[in-house]
């Protein structure tokens, strides 16, 4: 616990010479061309330094816009007119330098000395550092996945072959020039798999998310490998939602969606959603969309009307939304057995929507494992030691940066990759075009059944129709390309 004689680390931001608002009061995202307005008058900075030193603060550094200061709790409370409280601190993101520190209560006012208030925008006590990576192994993961003794597929080769995308690649089509945004937990492309792949991939933050290079969950990183296997030439934008330090501050899907839209993508793919089943034994379906989801629904409809291809996972037994919206391409799951036969995945959702009359979920399918195997089917790279990596049931190490997983989370980016291949060939294809092409060219699946959990406890059996649990079947990238 810190004592009252411990120096607080304080960051001071000034009021700008040309903008009285100050950095912390500016409501929009800061831009390089605006930053000059926030530079303080140098004479005022000197006066502030003298004033702070006279009040017992130690100046430890200064930049063009801010200054670092150290001072005692008592001094801070007296001269900045606020009371500090002791806060406990820990983080999932790594070890922290201090487990408690002094900080003003939430929403506390401050009432600084008149002189300080005239020049200072805000004084901020700095939070303890998080030592990124301290909880993670120091050994980098291997480029090559570990061996496991059960049937599974690897990226990129097995996934590319099974979705019949290898023949498309041989024609020189890899998704070049197609911008794809994926909204997920986070994206850590430091793994040798991604480094070696030489992908054009970047990670950006949705509002509230932090640390663009981290993915302590592992979901986004792993699922993105599906997309980059099928369409290695795309321009990939990963939109991170997670805030590892304060998980409740993570961004919503809508915030991720708007961040994705600001990068002008041709495709947005999302491997998450909401389970809209009642909490009764039958998991009854809702018959109307609650208002809680209508803003997201409206923006998805609008994006699709503007020509953006929006893809959602159909869910893993979930009565998923937005994966059931008529406007989105809804992706289910098919399982290719060791002998090459294909069956519906009983892990993937399939149902008739009661909210959108006539809408059957899914449209078609990517590769998903079976429920009896916990859907462990695809060997995917992820951040070593992340939550998914630490799950020890898949036969891989807990911090080796590889995990055998799947779900419609994996299938959605696979099909986003196939769409990117087709859009490279014909950039004018609409969402309707893609749905139509992929439905008529998918491999018909006649074995297996869908998840019963998504359909009131009754699994939909696979038949030879286009409306079985895999929709029209397993997507065939080359067959689709031949339609263009």
């Amino acid at each position, binding site marked *: 616990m810190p004592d009252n004689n411990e120096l607080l680390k304080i960051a001071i931001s000034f009021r700008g010479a040309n903008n009285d608002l100050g950095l912390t009061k500016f*409501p929009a995202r800061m831009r390089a061309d605006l930053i000059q307005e926030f530079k303080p008058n140098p004479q005022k900075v000197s006066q502030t330094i003298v004033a702070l030193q006279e009040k017992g603060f130690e100046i430890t550094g200064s930049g063009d816009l801010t200054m670092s200061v150290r001072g005692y709790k008592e001094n801070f409370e007296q001269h900045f007119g606020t009371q500090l409280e002791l806060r406990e601190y820990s983080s999932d993101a790594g070890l922290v330098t201090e487990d408690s520190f002094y900080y003003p209560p939430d929403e506390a006012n401050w009432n600084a000395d008149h002189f300080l208030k005239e020049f200072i925008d805000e004084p901020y006590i700095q939070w303890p550092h998080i030592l990124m990576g301290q909880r993670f192994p120091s050994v980098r993961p291997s480029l090559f996945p570990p061996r496991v003794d059960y049937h599974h597929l690897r990226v990129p080769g097995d996934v590319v072959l099974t979705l019949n995308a290898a023949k498309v690649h041989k024609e020189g089509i890899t998704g070049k020039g197609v911008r794809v945004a994926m909204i997920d937990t986070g994206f850590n492309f430091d793994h040798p798999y991604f480094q070696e792949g030489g992908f054009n991939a970047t990670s950006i933050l949705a509002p509230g998310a932090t640390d663009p290079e981290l993915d302590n969950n592992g979901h986004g990183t792993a699922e993105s490998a599906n997309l980059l296997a099928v369409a290695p030439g795309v321009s990939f934008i990963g939109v991170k939602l997670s805030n590892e330090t304060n998980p*409740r501050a993570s*961004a919503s899907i*809508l915030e991720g969606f708007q961040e994705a839209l600001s990068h002008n993508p041709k495709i947005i793919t999302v491997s998450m959603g909401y389970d809209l089943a009642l909490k009764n034994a039958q998991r009854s379906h809702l018959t109307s969309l609650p208002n809680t989801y209508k803003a997201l629904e*409206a923006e998805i409809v609008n994006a699709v009307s503007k020509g953006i291809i929006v893809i959602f996972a159909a869910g893993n037994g979930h009565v998923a939304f937005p994966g059931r919206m008529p406007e989105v391409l809804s992706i289910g799951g098919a399982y290719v057995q060791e002998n090459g036969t294909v069956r519906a995945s009983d892990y993937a959702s399939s149902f008739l929507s009661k909210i959108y009359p006539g809408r059957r979920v899914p449209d078609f399918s990517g590769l998903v494992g079976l429920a009896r195997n916990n859907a462990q089917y695809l060997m995917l790279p992820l951040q070593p030691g992340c939550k998914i990596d630490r799950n020890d049931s898949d036969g891989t190490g807990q911090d080796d940066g590889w995990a055998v997983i799947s779900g419609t989370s994996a299938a959605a980016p696979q099909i986003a990759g196939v769409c990117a291949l087709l859009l490279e060939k014909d950039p004018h294809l609409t969402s309707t075009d893609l749905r139509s092409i992929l439905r008529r060219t998918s491999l018909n699946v006649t074995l297996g059944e869908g998840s019963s959990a998504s359909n009131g406890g009754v699994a939909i059996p696979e038949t030879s129709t286009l409306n079985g649990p895999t929709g029209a079947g397993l997507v065939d990238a080359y067959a689709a390309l031949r339609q263009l």
Partner: protein
Amino acid sequence: MINIEILLREESRNASSKAIVQAKLHELGFEITGILSASISAKISEAHFVKVFGRSAQAEDPRPLAASDFGSLGGYAGQELPLPPGLDQYVESMTIPPPVTLF
């Protein structure tokens, strides 16, 4: 910070109405994080939430990996909120989106 989604009425999906809503939200202590065609996204601190709505939002921790999914991100229980005075003319609904599930 609590995520809030504001769905605008059809007739308010224009720049001038959005500016009015934005200003009112700002007055109430919301931080605007995005403006799209039909909606506005915002965040609000727990303390401001209590001031505006007279009660607390129910926090939800991240859900761990489960048999059918990869858990959920943390956040607050999804709910529809009463519209603060002055917004009902422009806003159809104001909601907290529930934590999202990772499929």
